[in-house]
Each structure stands twice: as structure tokens, then as C-alpha cells.
């Protein structure tokens, strides 16, 4: 059983005068409703172009309510380049240059893929990691 720990720290010295912000949270990545850790991980990096429109970062898992986690970072250093992130037809938000997200992904239906789309010209670089409960290899063609 794998033990993977995710930790977040969100700090600010000047958000509130005289009161520094320090949010800290940590959790282990577990399979749904169990104490068994997630054992499947995809990691990678790539480039997006505006011309390629929305691309599936990962196809839908099609398994209801499983625990999966997604990390995506827009590694571009160009402030004009951002990445639109969605689950199928639902736009979640835009990742600006250098920004990252950490979110659960446990959509059960077969068409809820994670997709990303560059919203400016040129190549927008990104990196990602997906931690999964289960995965069925696609059938051969």
C-alpha cells in the first residue's frame, strides 16, 4: 500500500494588517472510504497551443465516486499566457503563468474528462500529476 501525503501552505504577510495569514493542511491520498492509499500515478509535462483547442489531459475514468487527485501547473513565465481547465463542458477556472491547482476528481460518468486549453498564442508549457484509484487499460484497436 502506498502512502502519499499532500500538504498545502498558504501564507501572506500583508493581506491583513498586523495579522499574517498562515493556512496549513495535510492529508493522505486514500482510495474512497478506505485506509488504502492511492497506488496509481501519472506525471508528465507538455506544451499547449491555442490552435489545438481543448485537449483531454486524462480521459474519464467512468467509475463512480472514486477518489482521484489532479495537480496541474502552468509553467509558462509569460504573464499573458493562461490555461483554461475544465471537466468535460464545465469550465472550472484559468491558471495563469506559474499558477497551480490541486483538486479532487471523482466524477463517475464516462464523459467527464479533465481538459486543458491554452488561451493565448504561442506555446504554453504545463506539468501535471494525476493520482488514481483505478484504471482500466483501453482495449487494443
Amino acid at each position, binding site marked *: *500500500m*502506498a*502512502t*502519499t*501525503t*499532500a*500538504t*498545502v*501552505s*498558504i*501564507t*501572506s*504577510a*500583508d*493581506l*491583513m494588517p498586523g495579522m499574517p*495569514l498562515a*493556512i496549513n*493542511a495535510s*492529508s493522505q491520498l*486514500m482510495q*474512497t*472510504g478506505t485506509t488504502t*492509499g492511492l*497506488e496509481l*500515478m501519472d506525471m508528465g509535462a507538455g506544451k499547449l497551443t491555442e490552435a489545438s483547442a481543448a485537449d483531454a489531459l486524462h480521459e474519464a475514468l467512468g467509475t463512480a*465516486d472514486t*477518489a482521484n487527485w489532479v*495537480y496541474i*501547473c502552468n509553467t509558462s513565465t509569460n504573464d499573458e499566457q493562461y490555461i*483554461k*481547465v475544465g*471537466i468535460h463542458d*464545465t*469550465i*472550472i*477556472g*484559468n*491558471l*495563469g503563468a*506559474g*499558477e*497551480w*491547482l*490541486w*483538486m*479532487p*476528481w*471523482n*466524477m463517475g460518468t464516462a464523459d467527464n474528462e479533465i481538459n486543458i486549453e491554452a488561451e493565448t498564442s504561442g506555446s504554453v508549457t504545463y506539468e501535471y*500529476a494525476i493520482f488514481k484509484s483505478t484504471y482500466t487499460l483501453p482495449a487494443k484497436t
Partner: protein
Amino acid sequence: MATLTPTLTLVSTDLSDDELNFSVTDSLTVTAPHIATARTSVTTTGANNIIQPATDGQTYYVYVKHTGLDAGGSAVSTTLGIELTGDVVIGKLAAGEFMFMPVGGHSLGVQLQSSGGTIVAEYAYFTKG
């Protein structure tokens, strides 16, 4: 304007033969409005638990944590749904889990919904400057 520094660390010694020890950080410029931080008792009706106002061209950075407790302080194992307003499900958090992500590109807010009973959620949001 203020500076927000979010850092994510992912660590595992046994997920693969190679140790996972990964960290990413960023420096975000944020402005009002913001909430940092608050707790709310989430019920099973998402529309009654809106934690971030509808976007109007801006981006919000949103943090949510499932505290693992109900409104009475007892431990719960129910899941905390993360939704865009209008009951558009994004994902679910189990007890102790958290998320941090930008929300924008549409005109929706963020709401929370318990799968049963109440769940105390900790949350914060910051407006991108």
C-alpha cells in the same frame, strides 16, 4: 494589493521505486474581496452554502478543507461536495482532505454540499489582483 504564497508538497516513499518528493510554490497578487479563513456548517442543500460569490470576469483562488466534523463536533465520514452554483459538481472531499484552485472564466460562484447531515468546512477565497 497583497501577496499570497501558496505551496503544495507531495511526498511518498513507496508509491514507486523512486521517492516522490515534489514541491511547487507561487507568488500571487490578490485584492479585495477575500475571506481568510472561515468555517461553515455545510448542509445537504448546496444553494444554501455558497462560499464564493459569482465571478464577474475575475478569478478567485479558492481553498476548501473538510474538517471531518459535523456541526455538533462529532466525527463524520460523509463527503463534502464542491460545486459551482447551479449544482454543477466539480468533486468531493473526504474527511481531512483539502483543495486549492482558481475559479473563473464563467459567471458562477462556489457552493458546498454535504452528502448527509452537516459537515464543518474550512474555506478561504482570494480575488486575483
